């Protein structure tokens, strides 16, 4: 069976805004897949502007995810601050469970639940960050037959996060930042 990508999940922390700008800004306007994004951030008011700022850089619609929102292709869903974002069958789900590695939203929580629900249909992307979050989730995606990309740590504002996943053997492909968007375009074209 050819594994088709059904859902893209992206995790990033420190330096993430610029990396997201680059990756999401590089997607073709008719990109067909849903993309869920965890960006570590604080809970203050200014942080809730993230979706608005990202929208300025992308042609695909960006919004902060609501509980039980349907997963629709061609849309970008941001994990809201102070909630974990999880994937259920066909829908997103939120939780306010304890922080993971001091983070809520947590990348591991998103990645693990995506892998448990969409198995080999998950494409995970780990970008810049100074955290150990994401490695467990990346390993789960691989274990369930999905694919994991990591930003080349040499091109990352903070190499810790992608490097941790690479060192743990949880990554399939390591790509420089500017090539990740192109990879996603190709992977999604295979999907069609």
């Amino acid at each position: 069976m050819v594994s088709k990508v059904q859902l893209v999940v992206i995790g990033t922390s420190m330096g993430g805004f610029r990396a997201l700008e680059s990756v999401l800004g590089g997607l073709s306007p008719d990109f067909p897949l849903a993309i869920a994004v965890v960006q570590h951030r604080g809970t203050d008011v200014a942080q809730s502007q993230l979706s608005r700022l990202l929208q300025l850089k992308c042609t695909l619609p960006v919004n902060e995810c609501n509980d039980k929102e349907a997963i629709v292709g061609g849309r970008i869903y941001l994990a809201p601050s102070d909630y974990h974002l999880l994937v259920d069958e066909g829908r997103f789900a939120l939780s306010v469970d304890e922080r993971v590695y001091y983070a809520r939203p947590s990348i591991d929580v998103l990645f693990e639940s995506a892998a448990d629900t969409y198995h080999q249909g998950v494409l995970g992307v780990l970008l810049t960050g100074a955290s150990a979050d994401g490695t467990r989730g990346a390993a789960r995606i691989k274990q369930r037959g999905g694919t994991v990309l990591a930003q080349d740590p040499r091109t990352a504002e903070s190499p810790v996060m992608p490097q941790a996943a690479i060192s743990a053997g949880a990554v399939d492909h390591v790509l420089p930042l500017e090539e990740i968007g192109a990879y996603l375009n190709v992977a999604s074209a295979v999907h069609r």
Partner: protein
Amino acid sequence: MGNASNQLPPEPPRVDADGERSAPVVVDTPSPLPLAMETKTGTDEELETIELQILTEAVFRRYGLDFRNYAVASLRRRVRLAMMEEGAQTVSGLMERLLHDPPAMERLLLRLSINVTAMFRDPGFFLALRQKIVPHLRSYPFVRIWHAGCSTGEEVYSMAILLQEEGLYDRCRIYATDMNEVALQRARDGIVSCDQMQEHSTSYLRAGGHGSLSDYYTANYGHAIFRAGLRKNVVFSQHNLVTDGSFNEFNLILCRNVMIYFNETLQNRVHKLLYSSLRRYGVLGLGRKESLRGTPHERDYESVDELERLFRRPK
């Protein structure tokens, strides 16, 4: 039928009417055991999904606790954390422990039912309550508030402080309910760790607080104890949104970040319960990322504050 070697189990020895055994049936070729059991499920996750369903059914029948309509993704995650805590390799392994060892069930219950919260969680919500809802509540001689799923009570005390500052508290009664007795007892005690008091104070001010949060508690050995006067008009009581019904009519109901753990079936049930518990012009407050979309009373509310998820029942 007709293939004798497939007949399982072997026939019992025949007993004649007079009690004597007749000669046993001799099967000359032994029944072959299947080399590999064929399974209907392909993957470990599918198996785990079956196990989760059986676990919630077993817990319901053994303890009367109903998690059968909880949202799968969070439930699975919490059950896995419990497996690690209990040293169980599989969901079935955890289930065995839960069924035979009630203290293990107590621990799982805490994990499944205590939701993390904070004083003035989402300050914007409490600010909107103060600015948009309190003026409306002033028009009533007596105000009933239901805090459904109050967990350890931080938001109940936040509400009490807000009402006191607005001079409305003496006319209010807050019914603070939760399914978990342990959480409720913590709420009744009104004790929170001092660790997060700095954050709580910031939230209090951003929520429009008139003074200082420290006016409302005394610090003692690393803990903050809220003034007893704050719970003077609060009734803490056990109530299970999954199984219990409406118990009054309210001017304001808060049910925040509780239904995110429920699946749509259960969420819809709770929405019916909340709607039927609101009096005319009553207000419902949800969590910042909870929506009425797709729920049974979506069209029966008007929005008071779209961003902060405050809705009014107009009739």
